[in-house]
């Protein structure tokens, strides 16, 4: 828990927002934020930051619609559409982007709402459409189009005039120079061609990359052709529903030959859910709530409660089942209204034995005058040179040189610690217990180190003896026959308890000290905590 997934931002000048939402609705933005859980900023610009789960709200027009339903009893009992005959052929149904959906929205001149409309469609293509990879929406001025339409492909050598330019030029040049071309060419490619949506007069878009100049929408556009191309049919369907919701909120007539709003699982724009679910709501919330109130909360949130069923409106693509309804009911009711109920576990708590053991080891170390430190698991390549290499487990996508490797021992981090604290007073005695990546698995290690002008093997050995005396009466032995590459030959070795090697101890080689710009001798011991635990028990 505690993830922060990408937030979605919509913004526009406050004058503009007030105009398109209407004053009453605008004034409710603040209050409604407590219901939905978005963040807002008012200034010259209105800025609203949404969680990504409610794409239907990602515009001021649809936000206004939701506010009207919540506060002003706007009730949509059916969502209607007309069947028109869209003449379109799909030549790409075997390609990587096989799906195309279209519908027509007819209404008043779009006027100043144009920006909100475009931002909304950009936003849903980006979020629901996963940066257009899964699906993307294209908007056209329907009055400039002559059917039949064809979703096919075109050669990159051909010419095209992007929506924001005034002359045709070579597509292969456009994909290298146009901002959208550069961004989305990989998605538009099919074989060595690009997708193309054409009417009788030529290409109207290169989906999902660019629309044409000829069919470009502007403030005078009244009738829109909306196309959705998709690699995933379900995502494409969701984008179509969201786009239809936008136009529906504006009172546009929807003309759709696929009849999506009346096709299962939808009927008249609603998906129905059994009323019996309502009885389970109080149990999940944990408070008594009257059935009448539950209905009321649902209606405020845009659901239809009628004829013994609950209708989920078509644009709520995030609703996947009963618990989503419960959340909407809780939101409408307000989280403040939840009266809390004590819960008692029927068990005794138990600490993780590893953590318990670590705490004991820490106490011993502190008793000997060592300060605990903590360092990062992700480290640099210099620090992993000294330890045993893992079986080639590596970070595939490091963020920077300094944090590019998984540490395979702790003591190099301690050398860095001493380096950072070169000018602090001595002696410096430190220890750390933490995770490392061993040859095979992750291991829990403990390392302790001393930096001081008066320092040497007998010092660190003394600490090790005292440390082990606190844990075991077993014999242990320092085996100097295994050379350790960071330790002066003859001044350190592996630590054996009953022939189990639990770690190493010794004086760090001068060249390594100088490599970390250290001016004092350093002695260390590093121990595998799990091996230690099994060796002593």
């Amino acid at each position, binding site marked *: *828990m*505690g*993830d922060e*997934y990408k937030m979605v931002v919509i913004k526009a000048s406050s004058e503009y927002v007030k105009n398109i939402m209407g004053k009453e609705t605008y004034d409710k933005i603040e209050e409604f934020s*407590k*219901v939905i*859980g978005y963040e807002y900023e008012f200034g010259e610009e209105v800025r609203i930051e949404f*969680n*990504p*789960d409610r794409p239907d709200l990602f515009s001021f027009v649809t936000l206004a619609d939701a506010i009207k339903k919540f506060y002003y009893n706007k009730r949509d009992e059916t969502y209607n559409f007309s069947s028109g005959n869209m003449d379109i052929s799909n030549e790409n149904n075997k390609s990587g982007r096989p799906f195309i959906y279209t519908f027509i929205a007819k209404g008043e001149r779009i006027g100043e709402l144009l920006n909100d409309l475009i931002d909304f469609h950009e936003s849903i293509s980006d979020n629901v459409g*996963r940066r257009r*990879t*899964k699906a993307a929406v294209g908007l056209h001025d329907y009055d400039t189009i002559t059917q039949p339409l064809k979703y096919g492909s075109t050669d990159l050598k051909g010419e095209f005039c992007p929506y924001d330019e005034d002359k045709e030029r070579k597509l292969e040049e456009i994909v290298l120079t146009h901002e959208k071309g550069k961004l989305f060419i990989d998605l538009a490619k099919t074989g060595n061609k690009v997708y193309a949506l054409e009417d009788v007069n030529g290409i109207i878009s290169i989906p999902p990359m660019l629309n044409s100049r000829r069919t470009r929408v502007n403030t005078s556009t009244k009738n829109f052709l909306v196309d959705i191309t998709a690699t*995933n*049919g379900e995502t494409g369907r969701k984008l179509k529903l969201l786009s239809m919701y936008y136009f529906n909120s504006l009172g546009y007539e929807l003309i759709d030959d696929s009849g999506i709003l009346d096709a299962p*699982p939808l009927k008249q724009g609603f998906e129905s859910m059994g009323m019996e679910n309502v009885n389970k709501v109080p149990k999940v*919330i*944990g408070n008594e709530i009257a059935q009448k109130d539950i209905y009321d909360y649902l209606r405020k949130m845009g659901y239809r409660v009628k004829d013994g069923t609950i209708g989920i409106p078509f644009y709520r693509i995030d609703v*996947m089942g*009963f618990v989503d309804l419960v959340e909407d009911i*809780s*939101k409408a009711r307000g*989280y403040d209204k939840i*009266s*809390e*109920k004590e*819960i*008692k*576990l*029927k*068990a*005794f*708590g*138990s*600490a993780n034995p590893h*953590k318990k053991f670590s705490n004991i080891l*820490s106490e011993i170390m*502190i008793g000997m005058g060592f*300060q*605990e430190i*903590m*360092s*990062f*698991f*992700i480290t640099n390549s210099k620090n992993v040179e000294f330890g045993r290499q893992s079986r*080639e*487990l*590596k*970070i*595939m*996508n490091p*963020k*920077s040189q300094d*944090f590019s490797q998984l540490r395979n021992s702790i003591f190099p981090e301690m050398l860095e*610690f001493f380096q*950072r*604290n070169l000018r602090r007073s001595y002696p410096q*005695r430190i220890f750390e217990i933490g*995770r490392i990546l061993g040859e095979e698995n*992750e291991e829990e290690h403990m390392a302790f180190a001393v930096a001081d002008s008066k320092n040497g093997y007998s010092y660190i050995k003394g600490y090790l003896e005292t440390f082990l005396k606190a844990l075991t009466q077993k014999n242990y032995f320092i085996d100097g026959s295994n050379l350790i590459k960071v330790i002066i030959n003859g001044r350190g070795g592996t630590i054996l308890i009953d022939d189990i090697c639990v770690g190493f101890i010794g004086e760090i080689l001068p060249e390594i000290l100088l490599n970390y710009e250290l001016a004092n001798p350093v002695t260390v011991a590093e121990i595998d905590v799990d091996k230690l635990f099994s060796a002593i028990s």
Partner: protein
Amino acid sequence: MEQGNSFHKDVQMTNITYELYLRKKYKINVTCFNYKNLNGRCTTMVLFSSIMKNKKLLNFHKFFKQNIIFQTVEISNNEAKLLYFLSQRDNSQPISIEECGESNLTQEEIRSASSWLKMKGMVDLSEVKEVKYELGDEGKIYLENGFPEENLLSLVKDRGEVSIDLVMKIMGDSNARIAIAQISKFGFAPIKGKIRWDADKGEIFKEEIERRRQVLKLIEAGMPLDKLFETTLQNLLKRGDVIYSRKKTRWNLSITEKGREYTKSSPIKLTIGELTPQILLDGSWKTAEFRKYELNLQGKQFNRVGRHPLKYLINEIREIFLQLGFTEMSGNYIESTGWNMDSLFIPQDHPARDMQDTFYIASKNKITFSKDEEKLFKKFGSVQKNGIRGYRGYGVDWHLNESEKLVLRTHTTPNTIRYLSKYKEIEGGYFSVEKVFRHESVDWKHLAEFHQIEGAVHSKDTSLATLKWFLKYFYAQLGFEDIRLVPSYYPYTEPSMDVIVKINGKDVELGGSGIFRPEVLKPLGIKYPVMAWGMGLERLALIYYGLNDLRQLYESDIDWLRNFKIKI
């Protein structure tokens, strides 16, 4: 606080705080460091330990002289002894430190005590430069056998006239040369190789020779030399190996009026400073008084060691959970995407799975998963694609190889899922405070790895109401009495709520919570509803320890670790 025991090492400090009053009526604390440097000089450094109200006081020395009067005077045992000794002397002539031997103090103790007394205005301590003389080897011989010039004079007197050659023969070359040079200055310069006797001149020279002898005798006896001997002394100094001069600095001590007043007003008793084994054994503690120390002086400084600041917090949080009956979990840092994401209903096309958000781990050898695990992953996939019993799923594509990638876990929630599925029919609570990773650049407010506090309850009684109760309890234990829950979103919980706390009047989001979706619980057969919550430990540490750079926790300054204030 024992003071003044610092003079036996080359450089060592002691300090004492005086309450000082400024003329401007500010009361400030001043710490005086009194130390002796390698040259044996005594220096007093004064440090202001409280914040100066008047920031203009940059010219500190001037200010110090003009505005500060020592107010409190506390006298140590040794100081008292010395002061008493000085006040008992008949005259007020300065006395050198060496001469204070009768005060029963060692030279070091006298030095220390006198410098403190000087600072307190009770004695004057003045430096006197002196010259001391010593006999050289020649000087010692002259004293025994007479000066060469003396011997030559009696030779000339006896013979009336002697040739230089004869002198050389009788006295030897070097002595003859010295003798002739000396005798020449008194009118016996050789003429044509011969020295002639002159009674008048002889008489004057004889007197001078006696003076020279006198000087040597006085030096031998270590007695002071009278001014009358100045010319003679200079003559002897010029001659090699007869006498040597040594310059010496002496510290002269004299009691001031203030010191005298003090001895009169407070009759001096012997008091005990540091309680030594000697005092303990000889019984002197029975009669002597224990000197009262200045109780608020700075104590001896040493370095503390202890747990890392985060560990105090971690253990505090562990205790809260353990008391409530939770079981502590632990898991690997390297995790499969199948567990890290798919088990939590995070679809394969979710942005959190992007390379920009998560550290992926490359493995040279192909990682193999058990058949059971693959079966489980496929189940997760089917839920994403087609949903499960009453839940329609995302309808998105799913591929097994996408679930078998390795990542540095982005949360500890997969652990919770593992524990829940292990004890799927038993009610219980689980928690951990362990590390998670995010694909972030490390800077003052971002870390690529940090600890996540995570807890979950699997119970028949789980509901939003019990979750709210738990959150209130938990945050209150952490010191946040006033929390607010706001709607939020996580792919694996529904409803989801974030926790808002008030910090210095500001709303701060500090953790997320929710009830696990059926899409998470059902495929694993987890019987009861599960509520869960989590928060970042480092953000809490930031608030607790007042840090302004998160890196300080992991790339620490040892002095911070030695001195941070533990949050209780």
